[in-house]
């Protein structure tokens, strides 16, 4: 006993050095009781840029601890206590609470207690309204999720609402993440986590505010109770033992409201939070069980799974499938292309993203003709390997799923593409969409890096997956002017890579040429397409078309001047970066280039007043540029406007450089050509 106490003291001493803050844990954490709301709390207000918020979270306190349930299974208890002050009528929805609960055949969660109430000041007194029986609703959303809903009465601006609940969850593999930050400002957020020595979790935290670890100690826990045998409810076994647990508390204060910004992957990549994933367990009388301790372990586990490894095992059935359309004489590249084309045509993606297959065999997938991205791309990998082409899965966390933290965490991946290696060249393939081609895959999967799973060496390695090729749009417009101020000429479009993919996807939406043209001319007032020709969407990564057109209403008259914008309908009319502030990096996903050429034949009887001045605007590191050049050659002028953004991610401090770049683009591209009647 003495020894144990000594040990604890030792930890505490160490800790007092670790804690950066002078305040003790007691001073930094909040002691609050459900139902005890002080008059002073009604005076609390958010400040600064959040002063007009619709509601403010006065506190949000979470606690995670472990115990054994009466089936003898370790469970974790998640308790949460939050109090919100509603500040305006737009904040009334904060008086409705929802607690989602998960249940499947082998995992159960339940709410063990919940209290909900609202508070108003009447006279000098705080009056409490508890949630009534008919204000609780259970929405059985589907067979897995049940949403418990609570709505409160007597809500007005100034009302304080409060909820305190406990969930008992068997899902110790994946603990609930704790969000310190929300859409409304939070004055105090606190999480305490006590993990018994048998569990090892990986902690991931990201924060936009100060997140203080105010307490970190080893405590001694007593676990006692009895386990009912599931086969014989009369027999039960009691237990009583002590164990150590690591107890930690994090506190954040005055956390500003989280607001979304354009051109980011997902808000979940930035919001202040801590998440956990089980790494290993070391129970007494049991071996150490590793869950996701290293990439090698993860890969080995994956390859043993029926929903992953089994599907990439080459067998006779996969060889039979490809023998139908592969010739031994074909080159490796042609074989790859044939298998890829075959799969793109035969299976429809059900829009679901997962790294785990939903079907049991590739025969099954091909028969069903549909599947999730894992079904489709694992089949692709299998068929490629059956043809002796080296293909391996790349695991990705999509942009909307958020950045992968890098550490060995399998659960954060949700997408698979194939990496094919032929003669020291690597290709990325994704067969979920018939319009994808080699090195053009699911746009949301363009999240910078992926984990290459080597099927032979059973190793996992991070590799970059950013597109190397720029997605280019080149428009060449050749025009002349008619007598009645009408422009006639041709529009020649040429798009590559992702831009070609987008153009093809759009083309697919129309069942006839007429409908396609109708859509093209929509919002381009005065444009009439007389002929659409040379449309080429057959070659991978290229889209081209030529249109013969006339344009009315674009050329304007001012006295003896005629003027029009040489960009026609292609000018950048708005700055995509409007906001006066920026917190997060700007993420464009792919390098982009927009090249616009305008060739104009000056009609007889007119002269060009003065040529627009050329400009060249570059970012300091040359990662983005805008150029505008003008050349006159007797009766012909050539204008070239080029926007190139080769950087994919720009840190937030460079936001204003991009804003300035686009300001220059918008200004320059608004300049007209002015003709004078002779």
């Amino acid at each position, binding site marked *: 006993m003495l020894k144990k106490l000594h040990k604890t003291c030792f930890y505490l001493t160490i800790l007092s050095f670790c804690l950066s803050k002078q305040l003790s844990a007691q001073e930094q954490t909040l002691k609050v009781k459900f139902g005890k709301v002080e008059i002073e709390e009604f005076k609390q207000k958010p400040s600064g*840029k*959040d002063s*007009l*918020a619709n509601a403010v979270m006065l506190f949000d306190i979470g606690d995670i601890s472990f115990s054994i349930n009466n089936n003898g299974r370790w469970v974790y208890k998640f308790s949460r206590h939050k109090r919100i002050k509603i500040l*305006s*009528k*737009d904040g*009334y929805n904060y*008086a*409705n609470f929802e607690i989602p609960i998960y249940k499947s055949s082998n995992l159960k969660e339940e709410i063990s207690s919940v209290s909900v109430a609202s508070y108003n000041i009447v006279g000098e007194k705080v009056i409490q309204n508890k949630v*009534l029986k008919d*204000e609780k609703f259970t*929405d059985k*959303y*589907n*067979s897995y999720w049940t949403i418990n*809903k609570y*709505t409160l*009465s*007597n*809500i*007005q601006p100034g009302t304080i609402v409060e909820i305190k609940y406990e969930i008992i969850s068997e899902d110790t593999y994946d603990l609930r993440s704790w969000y310190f930050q929300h859409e409304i400002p939070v004055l105090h957020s606190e999480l305490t986590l006590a993990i018994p020595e048998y569990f090892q979790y990986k902690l991931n935290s990201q924060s936009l505010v100060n997140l203080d670890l105010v307490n970190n100690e080893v405590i001694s826990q007593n676990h006692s109770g009895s386990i009912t045998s599931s086969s014989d409810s009369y027999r039960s076994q009691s237990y009583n033992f002590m164990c150590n647990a690591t107890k930690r508390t994090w506190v954040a204060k005055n956390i500003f409201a989280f*607001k979304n910004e354009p051109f980011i992957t997902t808000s979940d990549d930035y919001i202040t939070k801590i998440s956990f994933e089980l790494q290993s367990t070391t129970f007494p009388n049991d071996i150490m069980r590793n869950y996701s301790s290293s990439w090698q372990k993860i890969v080995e586990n994956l390859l043993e799974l029926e929903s992953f490894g089994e599907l990439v095992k080459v067998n006779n059935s996969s060889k039979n499938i490809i023998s139908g359309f592969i010739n031994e004489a074909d080159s490796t590249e042609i074989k790859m292309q044939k298998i890829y084309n075959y799969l793109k*045509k*035969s*299976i*429809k993606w*059900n829009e679901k993203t997962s790294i785990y297959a939903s079907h049991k065999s590739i025969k099954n997938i091909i028969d069903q*003709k549909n599947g999730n991205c894992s079904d489709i791309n694992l089949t692709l990998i299998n068929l490629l390997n059956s043809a002796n082409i080296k293909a391996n899965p790349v695991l990705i966390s999509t942009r909307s799923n958020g950045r992968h933290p890098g550490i060995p965490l399998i659960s954060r991946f949700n997408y698979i593409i194939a990496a094919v290696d032929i003669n020291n060249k690597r290709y990325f393939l994704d067969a979920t969409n*018939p319009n994808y081609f080699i090195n053009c895959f699911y746009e949301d999967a363009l999240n910078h890096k992926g984990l290459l799973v080597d099927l032979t060496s059973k190793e996992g390695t991070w590799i970059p997956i950013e597109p190397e090729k720029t997605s280019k749009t080149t428009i060449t417009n050749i025009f002349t002017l008619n007598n009645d101020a009408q422009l006639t000429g041709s529009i020649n479009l040429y798009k590559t890579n992702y831009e070609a993919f987008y153009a093809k996807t759009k083309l*697919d*939406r129309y*069942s006839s040429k007429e409908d396609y043209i*109708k859509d093209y001319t*929509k*919002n381009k*007032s005065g444009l009439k397409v007389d002929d659409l020709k040379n449309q080429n969407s057959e070659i991978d990564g290229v889209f081209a078309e030529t249109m013969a057109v006339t344009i009315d*209403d674009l050329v304007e008259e*001012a*006295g003896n*001047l005629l*003027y029009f914008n040489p960009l026609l309908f292609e000018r950048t*009319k708005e*700055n995509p970066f*409007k*906001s*006066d*502030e920026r917190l997060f990096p700007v993420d464009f996903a792919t390098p982009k280039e927009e090249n616009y050429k305008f060739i104009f034949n000056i009609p007889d009887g007119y002269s060009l*007043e*003065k*040529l*627009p*001045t050329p400009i060249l605007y570059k970012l300091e590191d040359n990662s983005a540029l805008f150029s505008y050049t003008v050349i006159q050659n007797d009766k012909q002028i050539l204008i070239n406007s080029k926007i190139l953004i080769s950087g994919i991610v720009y840190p937030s401090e460079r936001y204003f450089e991009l804003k300035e770049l686009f*300001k220059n683009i*918008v*200004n320059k591209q608004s*300049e*007209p*050509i*002015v003709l004078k009647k002779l």
Partner: protein
Amino acid sequence: MRKLFFLILLFYSSFLKAQEYATSNIPDSLLINADAVIRKETREFTLKSPSKAIEKYDLIVTILNKNAEEYNNLGLSYDKLSRIEELSASLINKEGTVIKEFKTSDFTDRSLISSFSIYEDSRAKVLQINYPTYPYTIKFSYKINHNSLLSYPSWYPQSDFRLSVQKSTYELSHPSEMKVRFKLNKLPIPAVQGDDKTKSIKFSIHNLKAYAIEPLSAGLNKITPWALFGPTNFEYDGSSGDLSDWNAYGKWLYNLSAGLDVLPNDIKIKVHELTDNLTNEKDKIRVLYKYLQAKSRYVSVQLGIGGLKPFEATKVAQNNYGDCKALSNYMLALLKEANIKSYLTVVGANPKGGLRTDFASANQANHMILCVPLQKDTVWLECTSQRSPFNYLGSFTEGRNVLLISPSGGQIVKTPALKPSDSQQLRKINVFIDSLGNARIKLYTQYTGEQFEDIQHQLYNEIKEQKDYIYSTLQTPNVRIEKINYSLAEKDMPKIEENLDLTLDNIFVNGGNNKFVTLNLFNKKSYVPEIVPDRKTDFRISMNYHDYDEVIYELPKNYKVEFIPKETQIKTDFGIYTSSTTMSDNKIIYKREQKMFKSTYPAEKFNDLVAFYKTIYKADKQKAVLVKQ
């Protein structure tokens, strides 16, 4: 031998059947303008009694391309008052062969709660069928038992643009003693068949060609066949009623809410405290309405007959929340205590809403408001909004037929309509330009009516949201916001004033030796629909409004004005437009006015509308030309 013959026959007949839905069997005429073809749709609605019916439905639809993919999302909703007996689907390939069949257990069961509700008791069985190549065909069948009936299923065989129909039938049968009502469009009156016990009517259509999508369309309802059906006597969730006409339905609704308007004593006292000193009835209504708005919030819970019957006023008094019915009924109770008579009013709240005067049915309505008739005029109250101005009906309830509920039954009346002069955007802009071409802009705008509704949220937005909204709506790029102010111009009126201070680096656009400035800074028309040859559907202008802009440019001394555009004036049935530019000293004064008249206009007038919009589009982008000296 016999056995073999039998097998061959069996094979042959199933082969024939399989071929029936091959895509090649679709007549060419039904492929024009179509994304999907309904091959066969049948609905049999068999009434057993005023409360019970069996509904059998079969749909076979061919999806021709990606645009029609929504038809692969199958769903069937049900609740405690109905039971699904059979549910199945199959996937049929281009050749007409069934390649996969789906049973009830393949459907996902989930709750079906509308976004505005906390809780409703409806659920749905849903299934999405995916197939990699077009075209393919889906068959969807179900049988559902209804144990409560307020409405009967309608029949809209051609419910959408770009959808053609090979065959669609609807058969309704009922016990002879029951009377069923129907309303038909573009359909012959059917012969009633049957015997002493049961009667039936059957409708059928063949080969309806698809309609192309047309801009600003008023919809297909005028030109396609459809039928509405409804009960005379019905029984819903244990309550029976008569739905022969609106008056009868109103009576039933009145009885549902009768007696629910009792207030607790403390609220009664409050009502007297608030109103006893007031003499004017309108003032009393206003005060009580403000009281309701301050105390209550909107929470929707719909359970069985609770979808039609309000909560008791006592409950709202206790909780201070409720849905449209509960809050309207509570307001009625407050007014009653102040000796003011009011009526619950049933509304179809959607852009094209409004109850049909020629056919009563419960599913036309989805909202409730309160009508307070006074001696001289009538006050209308929207009770679910905490911010709606007093006596203001917005775009979702104005100018339409509604059902007033009174002890003597239902009565159709029309809510007041918002005229162009009620929905204004009046704007005055002063632009001060310095010698370098940089501009300081003072912008004052007054919004009323529907235009007030569009901007009202800005009053309550946080600064970042206010800015983001302004940046997203201003049509001039690179503007910087320096100052923002919103205020309610007059209390209780749908009127907001907006004051913005903006700056703009270099307002001029260089063109040769000249400087150009687009005179219409912030209210340019950018959309002109294309001309539609041989248009089929009528078109709608969906809002009455009036915009007035005045922009005064104060120019620096070193600029000379070379050119200002001529005046544009146009008057049409759809609206009027004028814009003019004048000079005075160092000022350019630009004025623009546009009034639009909400209505449905005949298809053949559409090209006149395009011409009208084109005139506006051209006039709105006109520029003044200046020279720097």
